[in-house]
């Protein structure tokens, strides 16, 4: 009843092609943004920032990047952890080499560095396809981690290879380091995610996004109608790696503040982000957020529910939590194989007809 587009007439091409053509969608987005930008910072504290919101935002950004590659361009990548490490170490080197550099610039430059690395490791995709391509990106994953662990220059020659983020300010507000206010950290990460989500949404509906999707749907056919595979695949690798690099930079600088490459950027990160993309929905910007939300928040929710709510011992709760996550994943795939984003879409379609579905 409420969610209905009847009576909303489009009078211009721009209006017809808007990101959110339906008025109710725009309201929802506006409300979400206002809550996220204005209401949340007022109440957020350490726990919600460090354990809930920052992981969610960082992973959402990484999932967004990976979704561009896997969901839109159809190239499977298991190198996410390695590319996040590039972003993190680039940020560390830049900010310790040039302490005066603005953190936003540091993160964007880290993204650029990662994009370059991503293109190099994307080259084999021109010849190798499908699951086989995963090997090229896995090679990247293991090689990059080894490199950052081995070459002392990357961690400024300290004794163990742990990197720690020094405190940095933006517009007079401390953003990194333990003394930074939770709300500041949250807003900083959030603004990155919002800007990048808007950019992504527009990229994928534009010319370049259509190019990617044509490669994904059938690369030979795309080639025949004049889409250059080299250009599109490598651009997807570049853009995707850029996002992932910035996510890695945020992970290190704002969220964790200290990292060790073998632990923080191992192969399990690569898998985790890929799971988020698949669970959330391949080829969907919203799906990246839903997937990240599901895999970051659900375990915490289950844990707090079982340990705090039911008083189960933490160990048993952990086992049950893992099992439950597995069951939920399978359940979701049976109910809707195309991810949470598709589930949302179906809900919206049902809402349009509600309460008179005939």
């Amino acid at each position, binding site marked *: 009843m409420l969610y209905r587009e009847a009576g909303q007439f489009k009078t211009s091409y721009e209006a017809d092609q808007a990101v959110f053509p339906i008025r109710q969608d725009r309201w929802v987005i506006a409300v979400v943004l206002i809550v996220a930008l204005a209401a949340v910072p007022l109440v957020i504290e350490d726990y919600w920032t460090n354990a809930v919101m920052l992981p969610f935002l960082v992973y959402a950004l990484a999932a967004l990047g990976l979704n561009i590659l896997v969901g839109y361009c159809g190239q499977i990548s298991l190198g996410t952890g390695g590319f996040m490490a590039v972003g993190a170490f680039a940020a560390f080197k830049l900010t310790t080499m040039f302490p005066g550099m603005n953190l936003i610039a540091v993160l964007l430059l880290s993204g650029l560095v990662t994009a370059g690395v991503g293109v190099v490791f994307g080259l084999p995709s021109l010849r190798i396809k499908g699951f086989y391509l995963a090997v090229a990106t896995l090679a990247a994953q293991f090689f990059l981690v080894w490199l950052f662990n081995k070459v002392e220059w990357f961690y400024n020659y300290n004794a163990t290879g742990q990197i720690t983020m020094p405190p940095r300010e933006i517009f007079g507000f401390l953003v990194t380091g333990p003394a930074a206010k939770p709300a500041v950290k949250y807003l900083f990460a959030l603004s990155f995610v919002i800007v990048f989500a808007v950019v992504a949404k527009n990229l994928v509906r534009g010319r370049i996004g259509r190019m990617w999707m044509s490669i994904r749907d059938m690369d030979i056919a795309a080639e025949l109608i004049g889409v250059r595979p080299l250009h599109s695949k490598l651009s997807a690798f570049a853009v995707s790696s850029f996002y992932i690099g910035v996510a890695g930079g945020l992970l290190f600088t704002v969220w964790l503040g200290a990292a060790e490459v073998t632990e923080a950027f191992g192969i399990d990160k690569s898998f985790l982000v890929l799971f988020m993309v698949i669970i959330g929905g391949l080829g969907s910007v919203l799906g990246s957020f839903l997937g990240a939300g599901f895999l970051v928040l659900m375990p915490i929710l289950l844990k707090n529910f079982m340990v705090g709510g039911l008083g189960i011992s933490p160990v048993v709760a952990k086992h049950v939590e893992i099992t439950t996550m597995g*069951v939920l994943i399978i359940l979701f795939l049976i109910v809707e194989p195309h991810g949470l984003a598709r589930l949302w879409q179906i809900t919206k379609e049902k809402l349009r007809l509600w309460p008179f579905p005939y």
Partner: protein
Amino acid sequence: MGDFTFFLETTISGLMTGVMYSLVALGFVLIFKASGIFNFAQGVMCLFAALTLVGLMEKFGLPAWLAIIATIGVMIVLAWLIERFVLQYMVSQSPIILFMATIGLAYVLEGVGDLMWGSDVKLLDIGLPQGASDWMLDNFNIYVEKLELVAGVVAAAMVAVLAVFFQKTRIGRALRAVADDHQAALSVGISLRTIWVIVWSVAGIVALVTGIMWGSKSGVQFSLSLIALKALPVLILGGFTSIPGAIVGGLIIGVGEKWAEIYVGSLVGGAIENWFAYVLALMFLLVRPQGLFGEKIIERV
């Protein structure tokens, strides 16, 4: 020790390690061949099988042979459960969705295995020989692990049995038919669901064998599930659909990474074998994008 002897020893050790990798890869290949599913849960299945085996031996005091038979029974039941509650809803989904479903499965098996048997490290001793072969060491000064010799024999036997099973038996033919084309197979009266139960059972048994081999080496514990990572380059190199490919791929990766670690690794600071395995697989793939023994990729518009 002479340089040549050492080279020989490195090569032999590499081959032996390769066989151990092949065992893990075999389980992947079986399932991929028959259902096109990349089974992420294979590593956890190894852990689960080994945990069950140790649990039965420790908690119920069963002798090794009886425990193995009982564990095989458990793995068959597991295969049936997987088909009943997961796979039958997933017919004709895209590969990546099936892959994701097996990830869910991996979570469940890990959680249930831990809940049932605890996450302590457990010793697995079913009487397999351990340590270096003294005879080889004394006569030729070459170091060969006895357990790995056994693994080699077991792998060879398993491949032989599987080859006969796939080529000569009725069920084997049905399996190949399903692998070729689900719908065509269904239309000539092959039950997809039965076939899936059979394939997952066989993969479960392979997982048990793998679990026994690796578990005897390092004790049964969570890390056992991580050996799946070692099988990935093997799998990719050998091709996802070829049983001989898994073996040959394993041998190439095993030898290649040992050579690299010892002759190149010592120059650049070591621990390169992990990524080198993937780089090696990558180099092969650039020449043959479908893997060594994979089916030729035919693309049509």
